[in-house]
């Protein structure tokens, strides 16, 4: 599998600004070649609806073991609670807050034992998520293409 990711952010002085307005003053976060590709070992893409006050334990990708790094990304238009259990049995609990206009996102890369999503609200929520097994990543890792875009702009 070939995997690419890109994050892009921009600050503009008013809400009507367009993404095409890019390129004024740039912050210190580097803006580099937009493409990076890296072979990954397995992934899950899914969307689920979660009824009010219910939880679900996510299926992790096939062949995932908790010595691997897992890239995890979630998006919701409601409020969800994400509980991640680490291999050392410690847990991380985070509320993710989104609306239909401004979905909430949550993204990280770490070793995990389990991921539980809870809907604490009084309405059904829809969640999109991706779980990707990262390949070993070190200074000898070879990449196709260049580095990764991470641009942040201010007016």
């Amino acid at each position: 599998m070939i995997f690419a990711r890109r994050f892009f952010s921009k600050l503009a002085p008013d809400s009507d600004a367009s993404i095409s307005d890019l390129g004024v003053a740039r912050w210190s976060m580097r803006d580099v070649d937009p493409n990076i590709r890296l072979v990954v070992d397995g992934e899950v893409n899914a969307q689920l609806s979660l009824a009010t006050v219910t939880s679900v334990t996510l299926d992790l990708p096939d062949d995932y073991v908790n010595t691997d790094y897992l890239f995890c990304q979630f998006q919701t238009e409601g409020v969800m609670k994400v509980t991640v259990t680490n291999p050392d049995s410690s847990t991380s609990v985070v509320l993710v807050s989104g609306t239909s206009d401004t979905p909430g996102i949550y993204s990280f890369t770490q070793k995990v034992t389990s991921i539980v999503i809870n809907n604490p609200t009084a309405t059904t929520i829809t969640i999109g998520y991706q779980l990707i097994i990262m390949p070993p990543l070190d200074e000898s890792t070879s990449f196709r293409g260049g580095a990764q875009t991470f641009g942040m702009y201010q007016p």
Partner: protein
Amino acid sequence: MSYTLFTTPEIEIYSDNVTDPMSSSFVQAIFNELLQYEVDSYKVQTLVMDSGDSSTITLTGTVLANRKFILLKVVGADRAIGHAHILTAAKDYDGVTSIVGRIHTMGTELFPGYILLTTYNVSQIDVVADSDDIEVQIFASKIQA
């Protein structure tokens, strides 16, 4: 002044090698191509840290219920892997129960590690280094109500 923060976190997966990784994505069915937040305050910091170092990110003029957007990038020195995590102290949905987030990432200069989080009920945000000689860049903002 209010600002608009556009954020596109994009993951693309292909079954075959492709020449343009940005050209298509079945993930767009799940993830919006463009997320747009209006933020009315924000803070940007660059930190050079060693393992065990921590730094509290203070957003002035915010209250617990404010939605916040946090973006962190970490790289290691000399192409080594840099590890870091964000530690959040927050209240659960009930507004009473304390919850703690330990959100990890790792990356290199060529493949930086990122954390993105849209959250609320957060009272404290700390950046913690998990390896030596890392550079962390963090953007923390209050999303306009």
